[in-house]
Structure formats: C-alpha cells, structure tokens
C-alpha cells in the first residue's frame, strides 16, 4: 500500500493508448483483471486499427483500451476518460479530442521527439508549448526509466528492455489507483515460463512503475475506488467472444451433443474460433474451413449427423452463408449462426462495432426463409444468449442467428459464474422409431411430420436403422418430405415454416418504469443496453420519468411487445444503424417508433443519449 494520501473516488475512466506494438491491449487487460478482483464493477472498450501494426508512431497505428470502474453498477466503458496514458505523440493526438478539460494525461515524454512529433503533424511539443494547459499533464520518461530499471538485466538488448515499458505504465497506474500488482506478476510468470529474462524484465518494470509513483513528487496522492455492491457469487471478467464460446460449450454439455464449429476467420469474430479450438478437452471440434460457405456447410453437415453445428462470422461472412442458411431453413435442422457485427457495408470498418446486420439476418436469403434471431446485450450476457440459441435451435430444429457486435465481442465486464446445475436443461431426443404408417399399414418414417406443440420435425440421425430418408432444399411434400411441386403444398410449407418460428416460446419483454408514470419509453436491442441504461439512469437522476426496455429476441418478438409499445406516448429507439429495428416494429405494430441513429463504429455516449431523451421528454410534455 502506498504511503501517500489516498483520495476516494466513486468512478474512474482510464484509457491506455499507444502504438499497435506497445502492448496496450495486454496492459488494459491486466489492469482490468486486477480491478475486477478488487470488487469494482467495470466495463471495457478496446479499440484498434484494422492493420496489424501500422507504421510506428502514426495516427492509424494507435491502439487503445478504455476501462471504466466504479463502486457501483457500471453500464458502459465511459464516455470520456478521466486519465489518458499516451505512450507517444500519436496516441495523444488521436485521443485528445475525447478528453474533457481537466482530465489527467500521463505521457511518455521519451517518445516526444522531433521526428515523432512531425509524424503526426505537431509543429511543437505539446508537452512543452502550453497547448495542454487545460489538462493535468504528467510527462514521464517511461522508456528511459524502464531501461534504466533493467540496467542489470544484461541478457536483453535495449530494444527488448524498452518493450517492457507497458508494464512500467501498468505499475504506475496500479500504484495510482491502489490496485495490487501481484496477480499480474503471477500472470507474467505463467506467460513467460520459457523466457526467464523476459519475465524478470517485465516484473522489474512493473515494480519500477509502482515505485516511481510512490517515490517521485510528480504524483501527490493515490486514489481508491471501493468495491461495488454485487450479488453474492463467484465472478470473473469476460469479453463477449469468450462468453459466447463458453456458452456454446455449456450448451453442448447440457444437451449432450458434441459441439462442431465450422468457421472461417474474420474480425471481430475470430476469437470465438480461437477459444473453441483450445477446448478440445470438452469434446469440441473446430473446423477452419476454406471459406464461410464451407464453414456453415460443415456445421450443417455435422448437425445432420446429430452434432450441435455452429458457425461464427461477421457481416460479410454472413452474406456468404445466406444460401446455406436457407438450405438449413428448408432442411429444418438445428444450426447456430453467430454474427459478430462490424461496420459496413462491404469490408467497412472491420474492427469497429455496428448493429446494421439485423435486416440481413432476418431477410438476407431468397424466398420466405424465416429464422430465429437473438441479440445479447452485454459481454457477459453472450453466455446466456448462446444457451438460449442452442435451446431454440435444438427444440425447434431451426437455424438461430445470434447478433453480437464488435463492442460486445471485445468489451468485457464482471460475470457472475453460474453453477452448472442452474443452467437450463437442454436434453435433445432423437427419433429412433417409425412415426407413421404407409397406406398398407406398415410402419414408416415421415421426416416432415411435426411435433404439434413446437411444429418441429423429427431429428433422426444417419445410423438409425429403419429411418433411412432423404432431405433437400427443393420444396418437399408435407409429412413425407418427398419432392413436391404442388402449389397448395408449397403454400402450406411456407406458412408452416413461418408458423414454427412465430411459435417459438420467448419470454415477455420487461419494462423498467420505476415511477409508473413515464410517457416516454426508451427501447433498445443488443449492445446498446449499457449506454441506454446509463443515459436513462442519468436522466432519472435529474428527476425525470422515463421507461426503458430491451429486446433480446428479434425473431420472434415477445408476445407482449405490441402492448408495451402502445402503452407509451412515445417510443424512442436508439440504434447503431439507420433504423433497422424501428422499421420492423413500425411495420408490425403501426407505432410511430422514433429512431435515434448513429453509425460511427463506436458505442453511443451516455451523454448523447441523455440529451436525446431529454429532447423527447420535452416534446412529449410540451
């Protein structure tokens, strides 16, 4: 513990920013872990360029990691950082606009060389020219102090020593916000077992950073943020991609089906493939296919064989999978399709977030091709969404599309790890006996006979004697599944497939309207959960009444949704697209849902949404 005075804060937003090669993501991850352990609630937002490592010191090469932690329920990664750690001039320049006046800047002064300044268009050194006077600037010679701290470690070159400077920064910030550094030391020990010098250097740099804070007069006090009250339980920090992968494994476990992931790498979905490829010990098979079409084809082939077929991708990949998902709709086999949405159209903004694949998920196939669609709302919620998707896919024998996005995928938050026994029961029954009789009375199998309740068709696996049958993408006769061009049969089958999706059991939408007297309902779906909830909280704190509800099931929609929408004078729907859910709801319920849209590749800011709400409130009460 530090010997300097400690100030207590309720919440802090820190942004680590540096070159793509500076290890900012790791630094942020570690700070997050240590913060989570302290019991703060938190939310994170990594942000990096599509290039792997753009030229050093340039604006396009800046990579950052933002962390919001507090002694209370945290809903977003924070609109604006209280502290910016800028590892070079580019990091400063790229992030300064987001920094409110008065915020703290810790800058690696070693990197503010004439050459580096010029690279990003600084004529003079902002650390010295007074242009940062409105902020609290702490220039720290991060690089040279790190190298000096490692003077005795002769096994490494200067370049290698310099690389430890992110650990120095982490040590300093850990000191400043009273985070322990031991867990990171343990983490480093695990990571660098085979490279003892590198381990030693990193640990030394970490400690040096801490000591620097404690020793130097640059920093007068440290800060503490008390733990947030959280429900009892065991917690960990998870990103959305990790939670999704874990959810799939848990669902496979609960359903007794082997998990087969067919996937083709694409940002920001690739980590799902990476994570699952490391979970073979749970019977997970991952197949990296030649493209997205093959990936979903492999998953569908596995489903035909009785596995839990899953495919993961992002928007451009979903476009490619369209025809095969249509086949799955026609085959009526379980299939889970994960789309981690990113900025579009086309290649778009591969590393940024967006919600613009909703209509593609619903309508992006030829013919009437209905599927179920689910959207998780926070990183940790991706776990539950995966379980829910598997429940629907296996119960109703249908493709289910899960719409995550770049923000959920890479963002993280504490997650109360559930007990296995509390997870939903997902047992699947395969058909093993004939389910019909031929005109002459002998038993036979009708692959398109349906469960009267769910309208699901039987899942009879190859290998089951006596149930040999053929299925395909051509229209099939009701019950028998034989090829049929009969007009009335086609109409019936089209409506049956739609009715099956419409009949999926989904929970009612829950409205949060504490006063009961709100006239305006803030509605959202997917990853806007945090920003909307935070904005609503802020507006309520200012004494206004506003209701809030969040949609998890986009297809089918909850049965009570129409009633909820018409119960309010105004429904406001913020989306990171041009109003896709608004289109669906307006069409379905003829309610004049008001869109608020922003397509910037970044989550909504709480303040922005707060203003939107206030505008609507004033219009409605006017």
């Amino acid at each position: 513990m530090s010997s300097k005075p400690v100030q207590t804060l309720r919440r802090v937003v820190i942004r680590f920013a540096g070159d793509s090669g500076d290890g900012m993501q790791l630094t942020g991850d570690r700070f997050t872990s240590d913060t989570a352990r302290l019991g703060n609630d938190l939310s994170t937002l990594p942000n990096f360029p599509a290039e792997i490592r753009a030229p050093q010191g340039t604006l396009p090469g800046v990579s950052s990691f933002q962390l919001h932690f507090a002694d209370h329920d945290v809903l977003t990664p924070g609109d604006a950082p209280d502290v910016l750690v800028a590892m070079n001039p580019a990091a400063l320049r790229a992030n300064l606009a987001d920094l409110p006046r008065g915020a703290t800047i810790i800058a690696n002064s070693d990197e503010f060389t004439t050459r580096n300044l010029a690279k990003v268009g600084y004529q003079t050194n902002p650390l010295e020219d007074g242009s940062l006077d409105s902020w609290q600037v702490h220039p720290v010679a991060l690089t040279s102090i790190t190298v000096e701290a490692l003077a005795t470690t002769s096994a490494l070159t200067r370049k290698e020593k310099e690389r430890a400077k992110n650990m120095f920064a982490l040590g300093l910030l850990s000191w400043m916000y009273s985070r322990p550094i031991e867990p990171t030391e343990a983490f480093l020990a695990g990571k660098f077992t085979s490279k003892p010098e590198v381990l030693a250097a990193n640990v030394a740099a970490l400690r040096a950073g801490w000591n620097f804070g404690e020793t130097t007069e640059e920093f007068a006090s440290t800060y503490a943020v008390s733990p947030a009250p959280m429900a009892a339980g065991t917690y960990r920090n998870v990103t959305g991609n990790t939670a999704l992968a874990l959810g799939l494994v848990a669902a496979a476990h609960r359903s007794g089906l082997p998990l087969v992931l067919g996937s083709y790498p694409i940002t920001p979905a690739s980590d799902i493939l990476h994570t699952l490829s490391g979970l073979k010990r749970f019977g997970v098979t991952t197949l990296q296919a030649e493209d997205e079409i093959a990936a979903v084809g492999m998953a569908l082939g596995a489903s035909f064989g009785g596995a839990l077929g899953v495919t993961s991708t992002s928007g451009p990949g979903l476009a490619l999978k369209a025809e095969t998902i249509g086949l799955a709709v026609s085959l009526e086999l379980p299939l889970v399709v994960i789309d981690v949405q990113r900025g579009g159209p086309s290649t778009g903004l591969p590393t940024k977030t967006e919600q613009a694949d909703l209509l593609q998920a619903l309508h992006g196939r030829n013919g009437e091709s209905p599927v179920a669609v689910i959207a998780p709302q926070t990183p940790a919620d991706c776990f539950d969404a995966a379980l829910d998707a598997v429940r629907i896919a296996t119960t109703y024998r249908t493709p289910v599309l899960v719409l995550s996005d770049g923000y959920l995928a890479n963002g993280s938050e504490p997650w109360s790890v559930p007990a296995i026994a509390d997870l939903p029961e997902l047992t699947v029954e395969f058909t093993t006996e004939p389910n019909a009789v031929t005109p002459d009375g002998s038993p036979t199998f009708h692959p398109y006979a349906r469960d009267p309740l769910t309208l699901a068709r039987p899942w009879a696996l190859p290998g089951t004697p006596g149930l040999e049958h053929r299925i395909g993408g051509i229209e099939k006769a009701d019950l028998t599944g034989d090829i049929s061009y009969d007009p009335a049969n086609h109409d019936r089958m089209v409506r049956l497939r739609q009715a099956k999706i419409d009949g999926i059991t989904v929970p009612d939408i829950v409205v949060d309207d504490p006063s009961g007297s709100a006239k305006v309902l803030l509605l959202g779906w997917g990853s806007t959960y945090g920003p909307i909830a935070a904005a609503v909280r802020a507006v309520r704190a200012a004494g206004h009444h506003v209701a809030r509800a969040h949609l998890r099931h986009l297809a089918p929609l909850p049965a009570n949704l129409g009633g909820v929408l018409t119960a309010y004078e105004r429904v406001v729907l913020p989306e990171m697209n041009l109003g896709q859910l608004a289109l669906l709801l307006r069409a379905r319920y003829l309610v004049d849902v008001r869109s608020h849209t922003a397509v910037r590749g970044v989550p909504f800011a709480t303040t922005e949404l707060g203003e939107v709400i206030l505008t609507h409130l004033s219009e409605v009460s006017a």
Partner: protein
Amino acid sequence: MSIDLGLPQRPLTKKDFTSDQEVRWCPGCGDYVILAAVQAFLPELGVPREQVVFVSGIGCSSRFPYYVETYGMHSIHGRAPAIATGLATSRPDLQVYVVTGDGDALSIGGNHLIHAIRRNVNLTILLFNNQIYGLTKGQYSPTSRVGQVTKSTPLGSVDTPFNPLSLALGAEATFVARVMESDRPLLMDVLRAAHEHQGTALIEIYQNCPIFNDGAFDLIKDRSQQQARLVRLQAGEEVVVGAEGERKVLVRKAHGGVEFVDEAAVDRSAAPGAPGSVVVHDPTNPDPSDAFAISRLDGPEMAHVPVGIFRRVSRPTYDDQVREQVASALHAAGGASGDAELDQLLRGPDTWTVP
C-alpha cells in the same frame, strides 16, 4: 453414435438400396446406369444401409440420393463436399458418398472439391461428368471441350476445360480414378477400392447426356473405336492400348511425360525409366508425377483415354486426425468432461468472490 435396434440381419440386396421414389431422369440418361451399378454394389459392402449417406449438390446427377434407400441429403449447388466434410468428421461410423456433376463439382463447387481432396477427408466422390449442364438445359461446363456450341456459347466455347484428374492430382489427391458409366465391372472395382481407401477418393464417371450433349463419349464407347482409344490402367502392368496387332504401349518421353508408341517399336531392353522404356503402372507410387503424366494423355479429341485407378496412396485423413486431437485432449484430461470440469472452465483462472 450408430444405434442398434437389434433388427434381424440378412444379406442385403440391390432392392434394399432402392428407394420408393420415382426416378426422374430423361429416358436414356447415363445416370440410370450408374444408379443401377451403385445399387448393385452397395450390398456387397456389408455395411447396413443406415450407415451409408449420400450427399449431393444440384444438377441432374445430384438427384441421385433420392433414389437410394440410405440416408441422404440433396443440398445446394456445389457445396456437397463441405457438408459431407462436416458429416464425415463428426460421424466416423458412416460411409459418406458425395454425388456431383461436372458443373456442381468443378464450376461452382471447385474450391470445396480441391480442399476436400487436399485435406483427404474420408469421402467417396462420384463426379458424373457429362461435359454439360444438364439440369439448366444445356450450357457448357468446365469440362466441355473448346469450341463446344451450347445454349450459352453459340459460337463455341473458348475456355480450356479442366482435366478433373490433373486438377485433383495438383490438389494433393490420394485416390483418383476414372470410369465409363457403361463399364459396370470397372465401376464396381473402383467403388470397392474407394471403399477400402482411407481419405478422399475421387471417381470421375463419364456419363452421357442424351438430351444436351449426346454422344460426348461415343469415341470411346463405340466398339470399333474403343480399343484404339480406351486405356485400361492396371496396377503392376504395362499401359497399353489398341487391338491385337495394333497395340501401342506407353513409354516415357525424353523430356518428361509419357506417350504411346507402336508395340513393335518398343525397346524392351531400355532401362526402366529410360525414354522409350515401358511405363509400368503403379498407382501406389508416392510421387504423383507419373499419375499426372498419365492424366495428360486424354484430350478433347480423346485419342487416348485412360480409365481405372490413377493414384491410390495412403496419407493420414483429415477427419481421423481432427478426431484424434479431440480424443487425445480428452485422454490427457482423463476422460470426458463432467460438471466439475465445465465449472472449472467457466470460472477460468481469475475469479473473485463476493460474499
């Protein structure tokens, strides 16, 4: 995951592999012949029919699965190899066949085909090559000969066709064969060998489409021409063509490749491998160069068309290895995972507790 209902076992017959679906090909279509041969072949496998799966794409040929009383999927155009890969990898107990056409496999599905081949997935791929798009009524295909006049090439096609076997060999194939639809004994032999083969077996079957490309293979079907053109590859034997007295023998060229020369001109004293020395067919040669050279013998004029097994070598299969990685991970972890292991996974290395 094979399920034993304890049904009585009796030897299966062709009829057992015939479904109740009406066969809907044009009269005289070569597909009928292939269907009959496959239905006749399947009983001899001794595999229960529920363990056989036919996966097809789209095309006349791809209607095949409907007619065979096994499990089957008539999927979408070109994607059968990918779908079959997923099935074969997750279900080692099944015999997975892919049925496809020249358009399905080599046009839209070319990529899935070559990737299945390089991976060496346990699949038998029956490629019905009629050198035309049948189902869409007669456009040229990637195997149509240059100059072919079709609905979409009124002045003749200009693209060099693929040689499906050269392509497969270039894609690291372990089993490659060609058969005429009408040659039932050879088809049976090749199917048998493919069944024994571990990995992807590609069987190109020349199939006549009497409606849109009639007579495409007449030069090698016609008795009078056949002998001079059809080259029956036999493992361990010289590669010969032509009737008694007009026989030609395959020998090595001086600058790579192989060619036929009159038997009389063959110098049997040439050292094995010397130019002019006789090629003894060895499908098990690890080096695919000879198989490749032999695949180059045929051309649009069908001067010499080799049939039989070009290549048959052993290499670990994709699906076996994928399963092996999973199995060894399970083994290393001490068996299948229960609630405790899952719980540990969910917790991860870094938890904290709120009391």
